[in-house]
């Protein structure tokens, strides 16, 4: 536990040691703020729906930026050799890194609180979908993070990690989208729709928290963290 916490602290702090954190948070807030308020004044409805419906697409570009350096940088600097010769288990490092990225993403997402506050100030919005939306956003974000973190461990180039992560998340997202589903044979469609990263987000976003959705996201996260541990271990048998 203490080891995970030490890694977590180091990783979390490293975001704020460089301008990355500030640039990232600002860009995310400006971008999503613009999309939110544009829709808000156009539609004139007291709802967060437009904000949440665009979020998976925003995450597609923002989340890989959070994870791209986490392993790639260690490999490039050679610090991975230090890290792997400290008395730590591989899984402790992977979990520590993941938790740091998750806390950072959570803070960024929660900094959008002025949006719902505006709604409450102007009107009486339905609170269920807002809480559900945020929860779904964090779960989906965590799934993207675990994918991005795994891909970062495969390369020592941050840009490669960034782009490949976008593509992987994109692929896992669109397999659940209507356009893809209609092109599939009818027996495959429900499976793909269930496996798609977006389907469960929409489901939680309606304000109904179903254990199947939670289990789905948690399985995706664990699966990619497991792959990550294996890929870190691969130095031993290559």
């Amino acid at each position: 536990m203490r080891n995970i916490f030490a890694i977590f602290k180091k990783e979390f702090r490293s975001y704020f040691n460089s301008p990355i954190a500030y640039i990232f948070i600002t860009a995310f807030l400006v971008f999503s703020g613009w999309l939110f308020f544009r829709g808000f004044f156009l539609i004139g409805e007291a709802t967060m729906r437009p904000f949440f419906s665009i979020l998976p697409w925003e995450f597609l570009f923002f989340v890989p930026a959070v994870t791209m350096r986490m392993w790639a940088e260690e490999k490039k600097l050679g610090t991975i050799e230090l890290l792997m010769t400290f008395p730590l288990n591989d899984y402790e490092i992977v979990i520590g890194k993941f938790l740091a990225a998750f806390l950072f993403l959570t803070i960024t997402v929660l900094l959008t609180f002025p949006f719902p506050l505006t709604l409450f100030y102007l009107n009486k919005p339905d609170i269920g979908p807002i809480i559900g939306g945020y929860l779904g956003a964090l779960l989906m974000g965590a799934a993207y993070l675990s994918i991005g973190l795994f891909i970062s461990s495969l390369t020592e180039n941050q840009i490669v990690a960034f782009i490949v992560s976008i593509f992987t998340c994109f692929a896992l997202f669109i397999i659940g989208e209507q356009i893809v589903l209609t092109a599939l044979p009818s027996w495959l469609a429900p499976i793909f729709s269930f496996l798609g990263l977006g389907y469960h987000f929409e489901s939680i976003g309606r304000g109904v928290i179903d254990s199947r959705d939670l289990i789905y996201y948690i399985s995706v996260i664990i699966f990619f963290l497991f792959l990550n541990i294996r890929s870190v271990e691969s130095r031993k048998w290559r």
Partner: protein
Amino acid sequence: MITVTNLTKRYGPTLAVDNISFEVKKGEILGFLGPNGAGKSTTMRILTCYMPPDEGKATVDGLDTIEDSLKVREKIGYLPENTPLYYDMWVIDYLKFVAEIRKIPPVKIKARIREIAHLCGLDKELNKSIGQLSKGYRQRVGLAQTLIHNPDVLILDEPTTGLDPNQIIEIRSLIKEIGREKTVILCSHILPEVQATCNRIIIIKDGKIVGSGTPEELAAQAQGGEEIVYITINGPQDKIQEQLNALEGVQSCCLLGSENGSYRFEVKSKQGVDVREALFRLVVANNWSLTELMRTQITLEDVFKQLTTEEN
């Protein structure tokens, strides 16, 4: 303290370490010497549990590097090649991070960092970002990292690369000081460094050990026991040569050159015989004059060259 038996490691088809065995005793400073790509770093990576060997076994303090990997890692302080560091971290944060991972009790961390910073001459650099430091100071940060948990074993992979001569001397004396109580393996391809700091040397080439022993032993081994003496004598050439050859203990002698009636010879003595005194007496007895008498000292550099070049 450290035992390596029949260690072999391949990277694909290339054999990086080929069946090497050696031992390091407690309190010893071992120099691990070899040209680039000889397998030094690979051996160190196996010892530090970064990767397992394909065959063979390495133990540290009786603990196996594969089975008791975590315990072995606790005992070792490791400075990898090129001193990797997190450049965006502050020195103090970095040392805190390492101290936490090295399981130093939280209440003692501050005092320990101060102590280590003082030992490594980092007192004034603690509140700087590592990226701002000069190369010499970065190296000290790397060393501080290896020492923070007071490990029994120190493994340093080329700790002085890229430093200026003054810094090299400082780091070397630091290593020597530390090495009084610890077991140290120092990898290097810089000969004077190893000679200046180590009690024992292992020379490795193409993954194989080609020489091992104290610097003196290695020199003797490389010479094959015979010694070469250069002597310049002023006198009649034929007679000198004849008498030199006849001298007991001399294996061969040949004329190298002459100048103003002086003749310079290279005299090879038989194994383990110092012929200098006999040569001097010969000259005196014949009433010649002696202008040069020099025994060649085989330097570690010659040994290294001899052991690691293809011709031998």
